[in-house]
């Protein structure tokens, strides 16, 4: 799952620049073909795939640029394309309502020009979903934010009319949303590790760099190991999801595993990164919090760590055999 190095370098330099020059961020990204990166060319997209999208999200995280690229491209517009809905260009996000017509923590609602809304309802007597692509004024929106200041709003909708959506597509979009946050957590963990290495290599105490103390080396080795596990689980989930088109038990299990590993990696990485940085790492002027606080915010979105641990447990409990769930071998007899 590799990305053209020139494209990756372009993405990195774009976000390095956007970090300092934030004016007209969306239109600049749009002009570069990055806001509909994975959209089909027939609807004005760039026709790229998930590996490129993951690289784009990671580049934004590395430079601390907060922008709803994933919500727009990989969730809202993807769902419009998947349901063959005709739509006009606009900055979008996705709201997945509950049975009462409400959704909490909807990302970037207040900034969106249009909102793709999905809600559960009975269709021909069976459980189903409907979808509508609406203006924000058609919804009741209460502004909110997560701990790093990204808009996370409450949406309430009544009396919308929409087209039926296959429940399978709704399951897919939930898997996509969950894995997007895992990808972002992994990128933030990597930066926490880099900053920690830079700090302990340059900070001198007792006449030597902190890096020379074994106790410090152990703290950093554990950040590195946990982050590597989160990355292995997340990349494996993305590969499985691409291979199985985001559907099925193996995808759900792989996504749940990634979210559990990334969530628990954040516990170790945040604690140890702050420990090796000392008090300076707790200040607003130091950049560490851009990554540590972000990992804590993102690991709790689209399902808490507790939720994903329990999903893994439930899938383990209902699988015919646990090893067959972890290492699928189609056609193998179960005990």
């Amino acid at each position, binding site marked *: 799952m590799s990305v053209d190095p020139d494209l990756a370098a372009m993405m990195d330099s774009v976000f390095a620049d956007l970090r300092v020059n934030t004016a007209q961020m969306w239109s600049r990204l749009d002009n570069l073909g990055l806001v509909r990166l994975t959209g089909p060319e027939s609807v004005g997209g760039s026709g790229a795939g998930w590996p490129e999208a993951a690289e784009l999200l990671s580049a934004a995280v590395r430079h601390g640029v907060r922008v709803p690229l994933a919500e727009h491209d990989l969730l809202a517009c993807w769902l419009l394309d998947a349901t063959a809905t005709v739509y006009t260009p606009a900055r979008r996000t996705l709201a997945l309502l509950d049975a009462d017509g409400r959704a909490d923590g909807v990302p970037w609602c207040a900034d969106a020009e249009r909102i793709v809304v999905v809600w559960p309802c009975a269709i021909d007597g069976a459980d189903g979903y409907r979808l509508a692509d609406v203006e924000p004024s058609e919804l009741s929106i209460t502004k909110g934010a997560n701990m790093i200041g990204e808009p996370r709003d409450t949406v309430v909708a009544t009396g919308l009319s929409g087209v039926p959506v296959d429940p399978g597509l709704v399951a897919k979009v939930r898997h996509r949303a969950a894995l997007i946050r895992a990808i972002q957590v992994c990128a933030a963990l990597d930066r926490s590790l880099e900053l920690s290495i830079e700090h302990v290599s340059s900070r001198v105490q007792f006449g030597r760099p902190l890096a020379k103390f074994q106790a410090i080396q*152990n703290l950093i*080795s554990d950040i590195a190991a946990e982050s590597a596990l989160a990355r292995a689980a997340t990349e494996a989930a993305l*590969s499985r999801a691409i291979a199985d088109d985001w559907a099925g038990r193996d995808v759900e299990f792989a996504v749940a595993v990634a979210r559990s590993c990334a969530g628990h990696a954040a516990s170790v990485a945040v604690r140890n990164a702050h420990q090796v940085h000392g008090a300076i790492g707790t200040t607003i002027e130091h950049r560490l919090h851009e990554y540590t606080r972000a990992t804590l915010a993102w690991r709790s979105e689209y399902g808490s760590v507790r939720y994903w641990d329990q999903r893994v447990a439930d899938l383990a*409990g209902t699988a015919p055999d646990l090893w067959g769930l972890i290492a699928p071998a189609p056609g193998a007899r179960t005990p």
Partner: protein
Amino acid sequence: MNRLVPPAAVEPDELRALRAEVRAFLHTQPFTPLVDTWLSGWDEEFTAALAARGWIGMTIPKGYGGHGRSFQERFVVTEELLAAGAPVAAHWIADRQIVPSLLKYGTEHQKQEFLPKIARGECFFGIGMSEPDSGSDLASVRTRATRVDDGWALTGTKVWTSGAHLAHAFIGLARTEPVDPAHRHAGLSQFIVDLRGSGVEIRPIISMNGAHHFNEVILDQAFVPDDMVFGEIGAGWTQVTSELAFERSGPERVLSTFPLLASCATDPERELGRLVARIAGLHHMSSAVAGALERHEPADVPAAVVKVLGTSTEGDIADYADLRGDPALAELVTRAVDQRPGFTLRGGTNEILRGVIARGLGLR
């Protein structure tokens, strides 16, 4: 930054088919699933049945009686065996590390002598590295090899040699030059020692639960003929350290307690999910390292990452099962908690391995 562990990939269909084949075979075998079976499950009949299927010495070229298969194919087979709790101890060391070492450093005579027998499941090896005063600090070994007519005489004591009382040989690390404090890794050499030969005495080291896996091997002028010198005289340190990734990244660093975890899945509480997720993540990670080994990429740092995380997790599984206190699992849990301290010690302590990772990150 450079990544510590190579990327994981989707498992190809051929490997999945091989998993299905091994699972079908395991259903026909009469063993009771246990924990830590690569140390404690010595069953020569099972080993023979496995060899008959071509699943020992898989990476040995056909010309040496092996099967010419990839390192990833071997990885898949060993993962399946450990996940099922199969008794694989008899051939484990020979298959895991003596085969790659022989293929890399062995003479033609040594390859002809040992590889076909290993692949048939008829020749078992131990490890001759640790000594009473050399645990993590392997370069401090004191066993001496002195030149005699037509060979070498080894004198010293090796410890923690699992299966020495049942195995045929080990590869012993010994000093062939006095210690040079400026170059303490120099002057070490390796020898293939016949454990049933003269000058070799094997005494049991009984584990705290009364089991006998480990031994003390006392070498008193044990004779090793010239044709059993392993690799080059003086290159012992390079030889033992170059093969560590094979020893540290395998499924035995992740799955030692897997049968216990599987038994706990009937009550799917949240903590079970956390542990299952870690094992699944480690499965992807160690399989990525297997890919790196197949491509002959350096893998000592990613192998250390797998081993630190994997051995901690397999220990956490033992503790978790103990905390649950299910009487139906009492026997398996007792075995697991008794074996647990060894998980993070054998094959390089986790403290040493964190140092390896720190070096990989440029901190040392």
